[in-house]
């Protein structure tokens, strides 16, 4: 029996037409370009702002040195763990530099460098990873949310904060950072959906560094690119070379400008590569080959910028040396700060659970005090 032969088939059951339907948004302008946007090494580099690029270069070199120092501190046992951003410094630096003072940064656990580049004291930024307290700074003072360890859960916070600021009439943009693995989480989806529906002034920056610990992007998503996901929520998606700090700065700035002007959120996928293991606890040789790592080494964010700026006469040997000296000084200060044993106060355990301590916690605090006193007597 064919469909035409089915009882009731034909004109009768089509006597009514479905209500007229049309897409609510034209998808085409939201789609990312097929190739990641690049500036360095292209004609677009002719319009580089020398002042800005010198700053970016200095921050990149500092960032590289910061990464090296933090990794060294894990080997000395001064940090419990450090998720390196070697290779991703352009993303971290650009994210910090595009924000105004009143704006907010929502970093993931990997984004300590972005927090430092935004002006946070490196020792405070590393408190979580050193283990003396979860957040070593006042988020309101720096407008940097606590480093978020659960994946993508900080993204809805960024949306809520940006939404609240707009309700209050304040000029505030929130920039939220997440990795490629984090885009698989439900909170990523919900945050993007809320942001688009509310037209919240938020910029979502996905650092696609190739791997979620060991799982490659191909096993993470079947989307053409992560930037394509934007279309489903009704916001523009941008694909950018995450190792090209000039491109990162330009694309992020444009998204921040758009958000500030009331144009709503943007999803940016920065295509980059994690040169080191997920953390010092991970063995990257188990899931990727040397050839791949070597290929990315040739596309190093610091080298890319250094070559371009040198060729254009924006920096010279002396400037490079000055920048490196400055980075060394930063590393020395960080070493000194981290080599001092942190003072941990056991009473902190009970101090910040509730505004007012409960009887239960008072009882437990007294128990701990007695234990400490007994230890002191021994």
């Amino acid at each position, binding site marked *: 029996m064919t469909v035409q032969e089915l009882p009731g088939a034909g004109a009768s059951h089509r006597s009514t037409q479905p209500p007229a339907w049309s897409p609510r948004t034209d998808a085409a302008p939201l789609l990312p370009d097929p190739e990641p946007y690049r500036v360095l090494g292209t004609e677009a580099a002719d319009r580089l702002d020398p002042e800005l690029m010198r700053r970016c270069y200095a921050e990149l070199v500092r960032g590289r040195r910061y990464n090296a120092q933090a990794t060294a501190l894990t080997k000395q046992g001064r940090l419990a763990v450090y998720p390196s951003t070697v290779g991703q410094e352009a993303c971290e630096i650009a994210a910090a530099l595009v924000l105004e003072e009143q704006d907010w940064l929502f970093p993931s656990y990997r984004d300590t460098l972005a927090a430092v580049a935004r002006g946070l004291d490196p020792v405070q930024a590393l408190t979580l990873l050193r283990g003396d*307290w*979860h*957040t070593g700074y*006042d*988020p*309101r*003072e720096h407008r940097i*949310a*606590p480093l978020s360890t*659960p994946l993508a*859960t900080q*993204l*809805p*916070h*960024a*949306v*809520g*904060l*940006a*939404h*609240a*600021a707009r*309700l*209050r009439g304040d000029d*505030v943009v*929130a920039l939220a950072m997440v990795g490629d693995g984090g885009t698989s989480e*439900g*909170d990523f*989806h*919900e*945050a993007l*959906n*809320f942001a688009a*529906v509310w037209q919240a002034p938020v910029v979502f920056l996905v650092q696609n560094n190739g791997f979620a610990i060991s799982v490659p992007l191909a096993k993470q998503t079947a989307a053409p690119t992560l930037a394509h996901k934007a279309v489903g929520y009704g916001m523009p998606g941008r694909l950018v070379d995450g190792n090209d700090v000039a491109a990162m700065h330009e694309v992020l700035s444009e998204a921040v400008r758009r958000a500030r002007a009331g144009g709503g959120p943007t999803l940016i996928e920065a295509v980059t590569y994690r040169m080191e293991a997920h953390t010092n606890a991970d063995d990257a040789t188990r899931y990727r080959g040397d050839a791949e790592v070597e290929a990315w080494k040739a596309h190093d964010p610091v080298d890319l910028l250094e070559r371009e700026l040198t060729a254009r006469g924006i920096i010279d040997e002396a400037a490079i040396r000055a920048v490196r000296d400055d980075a060394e000084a930063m590393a020395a200060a960080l070493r000194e700060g981290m080599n001092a044993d942190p003072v941990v106060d056991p009473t*902190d355990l009970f*101090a*910040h*659970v*509730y*505004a007012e301590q*409960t*009887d*239960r916690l008072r009882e437990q605090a007294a128990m701990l005090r007695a234990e400490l006193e007994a230890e002191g007597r021994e």
Partner: protein
Amino acid sequence: MAQALTRAMRDAMAEDPTVHVMGEDVGTLGGVFRITDGLAKEFGEERCTDTPLAEAGILGAAVGMAMYGLRPVVEMQFDAFAYPAFEQLISHVAKMRNRTRGAMPLPITIRVPYGGGIGGVEHHCDSSEAYYVATPGLHVVTPATVEDAYGLLRASIASDDPVVFLEPKRLYWSKADWRPEAPAAVPGIGKALVRRTGTSATLITYGPSLPVCLEAAEAAREEGWDLEVVDLRSLVPFDEDTVVESVRRTGRAVVVHEAGGFGGPGAEIAARVTERCFHHLEAPVLRVTGFDIPYPPPMLEKHHLPGVDRILDTVARLQWEN
């Protein structure tokens, strides 16, 4: 009770422009139980917001709003619909004050209609309080009377800490027709109240089980038992002193709640009462709880929910012959 809850939000919003109500269907519809009825009309959609249907997103956005100085009141629509928001609740809402050493408290009220007895189909009748009370950093309160619905919700919205506000669904339509014998002072968070004084034993309960306990106490008079009934009102903090005083006076205690017994709040309460009242107790602390089963279908729920008979049978077991 429904009107008292609405009124509490309305008054809080009128007094404090930072109070924002948000959730699925809370705006135009006024909530599926109409608890937010009229708020969007009176305060605008920016203060009473219909959100996309996503509990983690709702609570996660509320976290960001609270970070910026607002006081969000979030509706979770039904007990079992709140579970997608658990990661936000446990990893961020409950911990933000602690993570930031007090720099960033989150004054969020999370309203969760909970419990059974309304003939709801599955995923609409869970008693989820054990999950919440096991999470440090949250306050957990549940009103059982119309006065407390108003007073506790006002106190929750005013609190600088996150509060899980459990609304007993089957009491939504209760009027003040079962007047408690004890005076109904507007409580702060963390204060239990003796709803009925007695001498033979103490029933310790909260939320939807309070009316059942009061009814059982009346029925017990015929058996010669004069039961005291303590309404906890707040599970975290737990007002141990009020409970302990009562049990020391009566010498016997039964904890009553709808949630399953194993790992339920009653287990904790019984343990604490035993620790502090051991020498005053004439019998072990017993519990009357829901069975340790997934919430049953509507036609079977009456067998699951602790009722007057089960309470009386348990009270009878407190009488040791030797």
